[in-house]
């Protein structure tokens, strides 16, 4: 039987990072003890990022410029999917230009959805798959979870050619143990006492699932090289290592610079570990939630042949740090600020038009004129070149999403309503000749300049808060320096 396993991986962490000291300082009057947690930074989503956009970015990191052909399925795991009834994964399929013969599946509902999704995907075979997990858990201001939570996404390519990690064991346990919950109509998690979760939950349930997975793999804890255990509770992984008798490498919790990224977190940690893994390494990945999931992977020789675009380490290094705590609150809907009358416009999207232009909009597809070669976005009925004007029927389709581009002109606009002022808006000139006016996002303290290199990012173009609909499109963002 042909081997089937992980053939690639990628990661995404939002560029925006908040210094935890700023959170603690804001709550000093009511929660002075938060100061003890006020170390490092946590990632947070910009107003235009959600679990779909983060998942798309992680997938782009894993796919690079490789052909999308042959990917037959995409699974998206998250507990913060923007839609309750609208296949979120299909939006990712469109953005990634995977074509139409792709099976999209959304997996949700618990902190182990990401790892369970990966384990189930690895039990399949046949066509290539993408397993994506993304989360942006939301915490009430001044709780310890606000300090612990972050945001991020991970992506795994699965297939039978170039397997870099194979599954050698897995197990799942279902338990009526409710450490926390969030009902469908609530914004925040409700947690029980940490000591109970750790002692009665983690310490008793996880060793059982690990034992079952080790049995399936036919190995002992001492044969493992790395333990990946995700939890927003500090020190949990080390405690589990002691319980199962493992004294190898306990994977870093990513607390210092990312924070806990919900159901994506074990996969984000795994993506980070694979960046450093050697052939023969055996990695145990654990996720907890109404029971637990354990997955044991064995790294193959092919690990040396795969490199993500920039990987977890590149994503972490590419950051814009801030101490603006209220900015995070505003982006997460915790602060209803006065945005003025200009914010009162309607954001209603014509779904009919959205469907007519789905290819152009979702995968940022420009047309290249067959007569004169002009690359143009948007594509209208005739070529834009005044010397040509050939019908669009002769255009070939070119996605601009990975094309290099630069700032031609720009301005920071303080007048328009924009959830993260100022709105940087300017002309983006692509090396292949296309040009359009775009929003430029995640601009750091150094600002922009004419000629600044840009990359494209899939983002929420505009939310329709009245109807609860996000329209997505591509924006430009400065290429990270040093990443």
């Amino acid at each position, binding site marked *: 039987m042909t081997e089937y396993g992980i053939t690639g991986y990628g990661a995404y962490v939002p560029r925006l990072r908040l210094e935890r000291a700023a959170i603690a300082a804001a709550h000093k009057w009511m929660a002075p003890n938060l100061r003890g947690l006020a170390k490092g930074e946590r990632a947070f989503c910009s107003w235009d990022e959600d679990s779909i956009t983060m998942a798309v970015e992680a997938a782009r990191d894993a796919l690079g410029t490789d052909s999308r052909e042959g990917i037959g399925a995409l699974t998206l795991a998250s507990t913060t999917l923007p839609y309750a009834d609208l296949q979120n994964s299909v939006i990712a399929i469109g953005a990634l230009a995977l074509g139409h013969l792709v099976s999209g599946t959304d997996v949700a509902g618990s902190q182990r959805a990401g790892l369970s999704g990966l384990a189930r995907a690895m039990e399949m075979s046949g066509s290539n798959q993408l397993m994506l997990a993304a989360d942006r858990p939301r915490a009430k201001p001044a709780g310890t979870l606000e300090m612990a939570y972050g945001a991020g996404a991970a992506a795994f390519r699965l297939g039978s050619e170039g397997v870099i990690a194979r599954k050698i064991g897995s197990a799942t346990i279902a338990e009526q143990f409710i450490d926390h919950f969030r009902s469908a109509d609530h914004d925040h998690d409700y947690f029980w006492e940490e000591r109970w979760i750790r002692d009665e939950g983690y310490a008793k349930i996880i060793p059982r699932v690990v034992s079952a997975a080790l049995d399936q793999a036919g190995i002992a804890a001492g044969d493992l090289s790395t333990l990946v255990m995700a939890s927003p509770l500090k020190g949990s992984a080390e405690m589990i290592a002691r319980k199962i008798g493992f004294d190898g490498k306990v994977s870093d919790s990513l607390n210092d610079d990312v924070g806990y990224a919900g159901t994506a977190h074990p996969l984000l940690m795994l993506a980070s570990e694979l960046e450093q893994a050697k052939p023969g390494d055996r990695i145990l990945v654990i996720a907890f939630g109404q029971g637990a999931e354990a997955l044991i992977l064995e790294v193959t020789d092919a690990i040396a042949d795969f490199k993500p675009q920039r990987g977890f380490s590149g994503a972490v290094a590419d950051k814009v740090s801030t101490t603006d705590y209220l900015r995070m609150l505003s982006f997460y809907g915790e602060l209803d600020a006065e945005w003025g*009358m200009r914010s009162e416009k309607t954001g209603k*999207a*014509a779904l009919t038009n959205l469907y007519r*232009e789905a290819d152009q909009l979702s995968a940022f597809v420009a047309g290249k004129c067959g007569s004169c070669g002009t690359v143009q*976005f948007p594509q209208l009925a005739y070529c*834009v070149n005044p010397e040509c004007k050939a019908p669009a029927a002769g255009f070939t389709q070119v996605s601009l999403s990975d094309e290099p581009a630069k700032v031609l002109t720009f301005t920071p606009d303080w*007048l*328009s309503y924009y959830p993260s002022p100022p709105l940087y808006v*300017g002309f983006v000139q692509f090396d292949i000749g296309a040009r359009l*006016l775009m929003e430029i996002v995640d601009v750091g303290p150094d600002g922009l300049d004419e000629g600044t290199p840009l990359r494209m990012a899939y983002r929420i173009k505009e939310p329709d808060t009245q109807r609860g609909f996000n329209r997505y499109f591509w924006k430009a963002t400065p290429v990270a320096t040093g990443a």
Partner: protein
Amino acid sequence: MAKGIKDKVAILGMGCSKFGEHWDKGTEDLMSEAFEEALADAGIERDQIDAAWYGSALDNVNVGNSAIPASTALRLDGIPVTRLENMCATGTEALRGAAYAVASGAVDIALAIGAEKLKDTGYGGLPAPFKGTFNDLWLPLGSAPAGFAQLAGGYRHRYGTSKEDLKKAIAHVSWKSHVNGVHSPKAHFRKEVPMEKILNAPMIADPLGIFDCSGVSDGSACAIVTTPEIARALGKKDLVTIKAIQLSISSGVESTMSDWDGSHVRNTRNAAKRAYEEAGITDPRSQISLAEVHDCFSITELVTMEDLGISEDGGAVKDYLDGFYDRDGPVPCQIDGGLKCFGHPIAASGLRMAYENYLQLLGRAGPRQLESPSIGLSHNLGGVPYLGIAAISILGLA
């Protein structure tokens, strides 16, 4: 090119409301104010008007769409009234419609009126326009100053102008308009503004500060046009005729192809070429007596003077700093204070500019009067520099 309309249409009368924040007046009041002045100036009765072209740009804060609001406000009973909209070129488009009707012989006397009520929004600046269902899905919605601010980087990059020099030149643009506006009783703002205040004003869209932006106001302006023969038969001696009205609209070249460098407005150049050909102007720098151009933002006016061929390419910074466009310079620009002092009730502006040229040509501009001007140019720029509409009208003595 076709023969054009040079000297085929004369201005019989014009009117202009006071521009400003008219909390106590609706669009209908503003229209009637301009209309009554124009009727008196033309020396005709309302019923002598054969057809009307009415421009209004923003439906959502004005009187709504169609020609009905103008027809009911002015009681234009039983005649054809056309409503049109072409962004900031709307007023000039109304004049073009009326002029073409007269030139064709279809009507004897036609009315062009533009009116806009912007101060019913509840906030400063212009409301965001609807871009269409498809554009809405991808095109970022920057503000008007953000659209025009793109010119600054493009201009600096092309001519190697420093940020400081360009800021100084565009500050001069606004400064001289405020100096001029003091003498315009119908202007919204009639105070000089010190250069320091202009240079240090809060930023709206870099490098445009608050004083680099035109005002927002309510207003209306109108023209009554006829043939030179009818004008003379009605007793007019000094005639102002239309020498040219031309437009150019973006087809996507600047915003989609990679040629445009952001330093100029292609549409203004195209429209100017056509207008100069129609009017028979070969050397605009020496032939144009005064210019009322679209100073929605200071950078727009600076670039426009190069696009019109009055300054040479890259030469506008020096021309402005030298006072070339000041009231005592060779080509006074915005002698009435421009959009800067009048504000910019969208559909009224083109006709307001023509009104000033008309008064100047007839020697009726009072304290603003220039010495024997013979050709007055007005220019509008709708939309944004890279996706918009340029309109030019040239008036002169017959």
